[in-house]
């Protein structure tokens, strides 16, 4: 049933008894043209693009738990394309454009809200770095504005301008940035992919790969049996190294915990997304009213999916330093997701050295905003066996060649990216 206010009204007459499942809960078939491992946003988007753009509909998405149970369901919902380096800039803008049409493409309201993303600066050096980045954006056709303190005082009078250890001096604003309802993105892709015939198989954990005599991947072993595949794509943030290891691969990736927090719901207080430039804190306010915020990763390898107290304190210190009016707002809930941190802070979308296995990994904490773009270019790679031009630099061998895409300039130290 097409979703609209009219279908809602019609369903209301019958007490909403007429709604069908948002997606079909499929059982595995013997074989698919493509099996995508990972029922998160990236995996489901990949399946949808394979079906809708590349005409490959005999596709399964296998998910070890419930769809969206990984980072798609535990992030801070920010979308933006304010990157500064070749490789990233074009890709994230491709993704941003797909966000802008997603809801109509999927017939699902993912609450894409372009309320702006503002990166604050507190020193001349930071301003210069933002100027460089903002100009890169503009040269790539992406909106960016450099605001000074006077403009910010008008726009966000509640920031700590005058009593701060590191006073806000200005910011880089991308008005088209914003937030989207993370779970709805997952459900929307599942809804639309399922409608095109994609099998979404939950509670189906991949335990190994089947390979032919030449070593080519021919399918996956799962907790629900063997599933044959022409090609296998993995989009398993938080488990990339573990799944790759099943194919004998070691990746330039470490897994780290990133925490996120939400406050109690309050009436509208903070207009868009903003990031503190002198500490680890970024924040937006959800439609429901909670302040959704986060900061730095916990800093050590972890698969524990829970955060530590010092980082929670660090984030709140940043919050109070920037926006001292949130002192009495209460932190309601804390959670942790596992970030697959790559060695240069940028993702890997490439064929793996194992024939038939395609890798989509290393998104660090930037995976959510990439969801539609990642799905599109990964589907392109799988369908055409060739990188999409906007993902051409996300190659696995770039570390061997010395062609890193290191926005932060931290080198092979993932916990610093």
């Amino acid at each position, binding site marked *: 049933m097409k979703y609209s206010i009219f279908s809602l009204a019609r369903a209301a007459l019958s007490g909403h008894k007429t709604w069908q499942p948002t997606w079909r809960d499929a059982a595995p078939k013997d074989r698919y043209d493509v099996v995508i491992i990972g029922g998160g946003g990236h995996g489901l988007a990949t399946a949808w693009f394979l079906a809708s753009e590349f005409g490959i509909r005999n596709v399964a998405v296998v998910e070890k738990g419930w769809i969206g149970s990984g980072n798609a369901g535990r992030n801070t919902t920010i979308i933006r394309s304010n990157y500064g380096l070749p490789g990233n800039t074009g890709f994230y803008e491709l993704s941003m454009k797909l966000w802008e049409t997603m809801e109509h493409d999927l017939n699902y309201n993912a609450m894409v809200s372009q309320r702006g993303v503002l990166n604050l600066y507190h020193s001349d050096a930071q301003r210069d770095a933002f100027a460089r980045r903002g100009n890169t954006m503009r040269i790539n056709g992406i909106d960016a504005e450099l605001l000074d303190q006077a403009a910010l005082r008008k726009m966000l009078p509640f920031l700590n301008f005058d009593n701060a250890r590191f006073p806000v001096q200005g910011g880089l604003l991308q008005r088209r940035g914003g937030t989207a309802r993370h779970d709805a993105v997952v459900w929307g892709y599942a809804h639309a992919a399922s409608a095109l015939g994609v099998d979404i198989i939950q509670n189906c954990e991949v335990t190994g790969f089947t390979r032919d005599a030449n070593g080519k991947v021919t399918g996956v072993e799962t907790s629900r049996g063997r599933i044959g595949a022409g090609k296998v794509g993995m989009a398993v943030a938080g488990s990339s190294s573990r799944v790759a290891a099943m194919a004998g691969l070691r990746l*330039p990736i470490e897994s780290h915990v990133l925490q996120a927090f939400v406050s109690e719901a309050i009436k509208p207080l903070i207009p868009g997304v903003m990031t503190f430039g002198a500490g680890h804190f970024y924040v937006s306010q959800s439609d429901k009213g909670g302040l959704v915020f986060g900061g730095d990763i916990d800093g050590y390898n972890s*698969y524990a999916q829970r955060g530590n107290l010092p980082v929670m304190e660090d984030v709140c210190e940043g919050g109070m330093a920037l926006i001292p009016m949130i002192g009495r707002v209460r932190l309601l809930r804390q959670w942790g997701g596992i970030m697959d941190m790559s060695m240069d802070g940028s993702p890997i979308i490439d064929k793996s050295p194992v024939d038939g296995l395609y890798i989509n990994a290393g998104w660090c904490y930037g995976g959510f905003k990439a969801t539609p773009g990642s799905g599109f270019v990964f589907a392109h790679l799988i369908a055409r066996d060739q990188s999409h031009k906007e993902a051409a630099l996300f190659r696995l061998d770039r570390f061997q060649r010395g062609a890193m895409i290191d926005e932060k300039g931290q080198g092979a130290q993932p916990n610093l990216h």
Partner: protein
Amino acid sequence: MRIICPYCGERELGEFTYLGDAKPQRPAADAGEDAVYDYVYLRDNIAGVMSEHWYHGGGCRAWLKVTRNTLTHEISAVEPAAGVGAAKVGA
């Protein structure tokens, strides 16, 4: 998290800095580019017990080898890096 520094005793996480997997060894000068690439970039990224380098920079400044489970954060052993005890070599 709290780490029992072999010199200082049990201390709070905030006194330590993390580096990462302690297993990779810096290749010899003539090992070649592939060996160094492997050392610098590739990780086992273990889900389970892992040996790691931590620096007690907020304390005695010793580099430590910490054996820690990345699934539970349980720490089972902490020992000093080789050079910390160098003053006692032969002693």
